[in-house]
């Protein structure tokens, strides 16, 4: 419940700074909700795949000078 406030502000901040909506997901899942967990992971994976490889906030040391 404390984390909920922090995540609300963090998500707004990251997306305000230009992180694409759809890269950051939050979900309430109880340890008894196996199916919801499976479904959520599938949805997150699909959403992130649809966005393509991340280019922001990425440090690729093979490329940097």
């Amino acid at each position, binding site marked *: 419940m404390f984390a909920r406030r922090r995540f609300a502000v963090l998500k707004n901040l990251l997306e305000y700074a230009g992180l694409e909506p759809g890269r950051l997901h939050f979900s309430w899942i109880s340890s008894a909700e196996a199916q919801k967990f499976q479904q959520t992971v599938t949805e997150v994976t699909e959403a992130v795949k649809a966005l393509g490889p991340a280019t922001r906030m990425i440090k*690729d*040391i*093979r490329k*940097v*000078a």
Partner: protein
Amino acid sequence: MSSKILSKDKLDAFLQGLKGARDVFAPAMVEGKVGWAAVEQASDMLTEFSNTEMSPKDFFFPQTECMMRFKNASGDPEGMIMMAEPALARPRALMNIRPCDAKAFQVLDLIFVQDEMTNDLYWRDKRERTACIGLACNDPCPTCFCTSVNCGPHHEAGLDLLLVDLGDKYLVKVLNDKGAELAKDLPAAAAGDEAKAAELKIAAEAKITGGVSMDQVKSREVMELYEAGHWDRVQESCLNCGTCTFCCPTCHCFDIQDEVQGESGRRVRNWDTCMSWLFTMHGTGHNPRGTKKDRVRQRFMHKFKYIPVKRGGEIGCVGCGRCVQLCPVNIDVRRVVNDMNA
């Protein structure tokens, strides 16, 4: 060596000549700030400016510099492979360097290139492949104090050529063979031009009033200065940020880290600052400079006592005044040195 003349209407031709073999950089207005930028034509260069906000030391000592790359592919019979970083692709020329910043190059030469064992090729190679063309100051700032720290508004150290603004032309002082080559096509200066430049030098020096006194700092023992009472007051307001060290043309401390991604990586060095507690933190948990006072004292002692003691009287400060202008809490190096000298 004899001096030459560069007429201001020939400045662009001179620049284009330099550009034939080199990438040329000079102080320019960069988004409202006086900074260093690549220049294409003479009109890109600032001629009326006090100095750039940051020093040009990063042309030789970038804030982040890849030193080498490595890979350690699992199962690779050759094991760990290390790859050198390519050197500067094209020689460079820096135009309109202020004499204090050029003097700082010379001070840093003494530190990065001491002998066979202490011979920093990253610094040295860039220095060797860069032509340094200075622009003498005829109008020093109120925060300048170069004349009290082995430097001056027309100082020549660290430069290949020094330009002195004579109004419609520059007197070009040729300071070494590299400079002679750069200026070989320029006409010789008349005796009157040299005399005028000498007058401007005296006039510029006279404009610097906010100096520091160093005589007592020179003669006092290290421990006497180290244990002096005034450090308690100097350190009070200090934020221990890195502003003074990063804007300083002579501060040269760095931190080397290996960054690894998968099976490859790079060794990278970054500017570091003695103002940070982490700078001296040992793996044991002991920190020899554990307090803010230790760290603040270190910066001034290093510049004004340790470097002079170890480097034949050279001072680790060139009096550019950047830290005076930029310190967020106005810790004025002139005041600190005068306290050390009191």
